[in-house]
């Protein structure tokens, strides 16, 4: 393999640096209408639309639509999943009917000749609002007197479960040490730089819907559009062009996007909707709103005995369709403590409805929560024992020799390299020198902290994940290859590209499997009309699943091409090989791929009778074992706190990760660094805040603080490579581990610094005010 493992930049980014990308909003359709939505200004209210005449009369307005208008062409939906049996999530509609249950829920839409006019008209729609008591505060949502998030509900508890194994009471009874803490995680959101957007066109004559949308999984959406709008699946074409960031945000069914498609179907005219930043912050999924009470039992030898955890998770007004927001809570509990050896676990999850926008799967779903909690407890235990936090971890990490490891929750982990990663991290940090530097700085009065986080991530979910739950999410993928008459290879993958670089990795795989240079492989993805059904981009699956499909397709095409060449050259296929775009034998090059393809395509009569070369092949890959592929790693963070102002500065950050075979280290490291910074954002800046009446306070980028270049540290990345033995290539997921571990590492670093002053914090993001209060500088 000469191209797999090479640090090649993604070829398609040459277009993007030149400003020649093609994002959703870069193309328009003739005669298109622009949509704007009237959204509920209240977190909870009954409403009646009393007048649309003024809006309709505005010059340039073509239609004003409400739920009643869309109902004939658009079904409501409800989130149901076998993985959360009995979950309560009310029916949802493209436009709300009679009751709005979160601020930002769309209740009417205007279609006009320009977006500006559509916004003018939306202001003129007359609505009678009847404000209802709203529940936004997670801590209060389960109180007996909490108002219901939807009228008619008797409780806001949408779902509860207990995940357990081993004898938890015995573990705590036997403990020499019990550490506990309550960690509060404030909602954050994805903030892809390109907001959500869709351009929908319906052809009534062919009854075909074409949707150009910024989305992560075209096929999943195709299915839902077909079901909801009553169009045959094969007549729904979903095109996801260049996508300006996904991170899980663009994989759900959003009411405004469905309404846009329904409006196009109703009117038979192209309709465009592009969320502006204010409506994006208000209506994109949020994530990671948790209050976690956790205890950890440790024996006299410093060995972890068990975890006892209570997690209350905010769902928002609905459990997100189709995957269900509860996934995040389950994932948080599953990832909590996963790197460690312990014998008992009890985790109680309560998933709670609130009058807020739904939460959903956001990069590294749940892991940052579970990991931050466990790593905080581990640091508390090490401190209580007066022990180095890495020594405590070293003792408790599941060793390589103990793999595969099934923990008390039944989570199976295989081929993890915790001890190797730890050793590599220690070398990378040059710990003795670093510790000496920290001591010197502290002696000079600086408030410095070093924090660690050990992680296991469950990636590249296989068919059992959603399949068994009855949720229509594909976990299989297919790559189709064609040898073109020019000798180039075109590839069409059901994996999609949202910037992670997956398509470049796949091109390198195809290149090696087939025998050409990667730049001879032209990747296509993100279009249901040209790619076979598959999963798209989620759960860091591109390399692990898509890579296998690409390898299989490359080998198939190779076999076809060698058979055809052997027929032409009158030799045995085994004597031939493909190298650098040429067909060779022991004597050297015999013909180019272009010559072969031209012969087959234009002069088929030259082939012997009965030879039918297949220059287009497909390979479909489903993993048959392992529900998810586990990856592992370590992060370390060095921070400085200005004890007078409470400002926290991340100084350095280190990551050692094992994501199996690296198809392309340059792109993997990009994923890691970007993920870490997203995690730092979550730890120090990002927060969706609400006032006491439930009004959203983070509605602009001046209020929702994102990590910017000025405050972010350089991040050192190193790898341990333990290939997954269950596949040809051995790749596992790499896209989310940075985000998984960074909040925990930062929180521990901050608390390491604060510990010098006898202080601690336990709420994310850690704000300057929280630091000052912890230090006693503020009341």
């Amino acid at each position: 393999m000469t191209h797999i493992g090479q640090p090649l930049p993604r070829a398609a980014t040459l277009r993007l640096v030149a400003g020649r990308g093609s994002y959703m909003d870069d193309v328009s359709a003739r005669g298109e209408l622009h949509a704007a939505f009237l959204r509920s200004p209240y977190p909870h209210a009954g409403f009646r639309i009393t007048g649309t005449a003024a809006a309709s009369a505005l010059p340039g307005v073509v239609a004003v639509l409400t739920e009643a208008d869309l109902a004939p062409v658009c079904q409501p939906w409800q989130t149901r999943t076998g993985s959360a049996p009995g979950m309560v999530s009310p029916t949802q509609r493209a436009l709300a009917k009679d009751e709005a249950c979160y601020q930002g829920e769309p209740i009417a839409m205007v279609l006009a000749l320009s977006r500006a006019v559509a916004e003018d008209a939306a202001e003129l729609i007359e609505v009678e609002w009847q404000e209802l008591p709203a529940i936004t505060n997670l801590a209060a949502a389960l109180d007996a007197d909490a108002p219901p998030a939807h009228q008619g509900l008797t409780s806001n508890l949408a779902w509860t479960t207990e995940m357990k194994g081993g004898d938890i009471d015995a573990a705590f009874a036997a403990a020499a040490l019990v550490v506990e803490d309550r960690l509060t995680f404030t909602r954050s959101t994805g903030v892809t730089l390109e907001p959500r957007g869709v351009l929908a066109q319906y052809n009534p004559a062919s009854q075909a819907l074409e949707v150009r949308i910024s989305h992560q999984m075209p096929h999943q959406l195709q299915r839902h559009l077909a079901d909801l709008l009553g169009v045959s699946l094969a007549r729904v074409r979903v095109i996801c062009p260049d996508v300006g960031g996904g991170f899980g945000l663009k994989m759900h069914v959003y009411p405004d996007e469905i309404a846009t498609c329904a409006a196009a179907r109703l009117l038979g005219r192209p309709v465009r909707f592009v969320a502006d930043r204010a409506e994006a912050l208000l209506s994109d999924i949020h994530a990671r709103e948790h209050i976690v009470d956790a205890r950890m039992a440790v024996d006299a030898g410093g060995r972890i005995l068990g975890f006892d955890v209570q997690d209350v998770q905010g769902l928002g007004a609905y459990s997100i369709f189709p995957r269900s927001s509860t996934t995040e809570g389950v994932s948080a509990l599953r990832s909590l403590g996963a790197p460690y050896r312990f014998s008992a676990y009890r985790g109680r999850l309560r998933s709670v409805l609130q009058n807020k926008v739904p939460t959903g799967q956001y990069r590294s779903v749940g892991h940052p929560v579970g990991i931050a909690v466990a790593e905080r407890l581990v640091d508390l235990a090490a401190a209580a024992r007066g022990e180095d936090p890495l020594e405590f971890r070293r003792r408790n990490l599941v060793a390589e020799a103990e793999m595969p490891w099934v923990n008390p929750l039944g989570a199976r982990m295989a081929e993890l390299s915790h001890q190797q990663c730890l050793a590599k991290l220690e070398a990378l940090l040059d710990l003795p020198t670093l510790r000496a530097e920290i001591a010197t700085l502290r002696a000079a009065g600086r408030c410095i902290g070093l924090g660690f986080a050990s992680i296991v991530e469950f990636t590249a979910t296989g068919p059992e994940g959603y399949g068994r739950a009855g949720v229509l999410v594909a976990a299989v993928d297919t790559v189709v290859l064609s040898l073109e008459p020019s000798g180039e290879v075109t590839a069409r993958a059901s994996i999609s590209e949202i910037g992670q670089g997956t398509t470049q990795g796949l091109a390198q795989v195809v290149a090696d499997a087939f025998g050409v240079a990667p730049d001879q492989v032209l990747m296509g993805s993100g279009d249901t009309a040209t790619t076979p059904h598959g999963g798209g981009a989620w759960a860091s699956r591109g390399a692990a699943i898509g890579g296998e499909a690409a390898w299989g397709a490359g080998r198939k095409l190779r076999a076809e091409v060698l058979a055809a060449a052997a027929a032409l050259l009158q030799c045995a296929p085994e004597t031939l090989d493909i190298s650098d775009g040429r067909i060779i034998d022991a004597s050297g090059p015999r013909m180019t791929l272009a010559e072969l393809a031209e012969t087959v395509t234009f002069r088929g009569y030259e082939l012997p009778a009965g030879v039918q070369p297949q220059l287009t092949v497909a390979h479909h890959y489903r993993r048959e074992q392992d529900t998810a592929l586990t990856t592992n790693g370590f992060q370390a963070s060095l921070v400085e706190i200005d004890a007078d102002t409470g400002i926290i500065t991340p100084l350095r950050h280190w990551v050692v990760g094992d994501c199996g075979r690296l198809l392309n280290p340059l792109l993997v490291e990009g994923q890691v660094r970007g993920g870490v910074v997203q995690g730092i954002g979550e730890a120090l800046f990002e927060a969706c805040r609400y006032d006491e009446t439930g009004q959203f306070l983070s509605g602009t980028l001046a209020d929702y603080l994102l990590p910017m270049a000025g405050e972010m540290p350089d991040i050192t990345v190193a790898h341990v490579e333990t290939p997954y033995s269950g596949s040809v290539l051995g790749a596992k997921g790499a896209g989310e581990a940075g985000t998984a571990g960074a909040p925990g590492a930062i929180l521990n670093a901050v608390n390491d610094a604060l510990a010098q002053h006898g202080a601690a914090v336990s709420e994310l993001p850690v704000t300057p005010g929280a630091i000052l209060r912890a230090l006693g500088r503020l009341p």
Partner: protein
Amino acid sequence: MKPARFDYARPATLAEALALLAQPEAAVLAGGQSLMPMMNLRVARPALLVDINRLPGLGEIRLAGGVLRIGALARHAEVLASPLVAQAAPLLPQALAQVAHAAIRNRGTLGGSLSLADPAAELPACMLALDATLVVASARGERRIPAGAFFHGLYSTALAADELLLAAELPAAAPGWRFAFLEVARRHGDFAMAGVALALGPNAARLALCGVEAGQRRQPAAEAALAAGDPAAAIAALASTDAMDGPDLPAAQRRHLAQVLLRRALAQLEAADAAA
């Protein structure tokens, strides 16, 4: 996020501009770095935009007779880079380096910032600490307003609806005076959580804050203590500022930050003196 409708005029002369401003619901468009976001969010809905960007000479920076005159249309980037400003008002570049980001400084203007009077903005505090006089005009004539009388509190100034800010006039830094601008912000270029603009002279001081109080004013008690050579009392005096309150940034935190910053500003000047 598109603005509501408005009319637009781009006067070529001051007289024309002032006549336009006499119309109802007219608003001056300078750099647009604050007004355009507010219009896009539809929290500002002027009926008529009077674009002053082509008014001749309005952005001039001049130093004459011991007075530095900065035209209202001088861009933040120009003021930041001006050798005249560095010489006559060294506080300003210190502050401007912390105002927004490069592309915003390329458009944003001194006049816009002063007219907006955002309580967290750096430049109003600098005008107070530098004892500026603001020159304003309307079709009714010209007025000169001392900085202390120009700022009226949260987003509020002495400017009448039909008035245009023409320039700020600053006495050039006198010998023996030293200047420090310090602020705390969550991220580089953000509006300040708290900031201090300090001019310290022989037995005299001028001190103004940003991000702390809703109104922009000097801090007479602290100034008096500084003039009397009692820095501790000056810092203590900031404990009784009328700080803004809010869930994210309580009044106590703003006061605390103001005190920290004043202490640091004084230490910085002292260190500079020691080095000199």
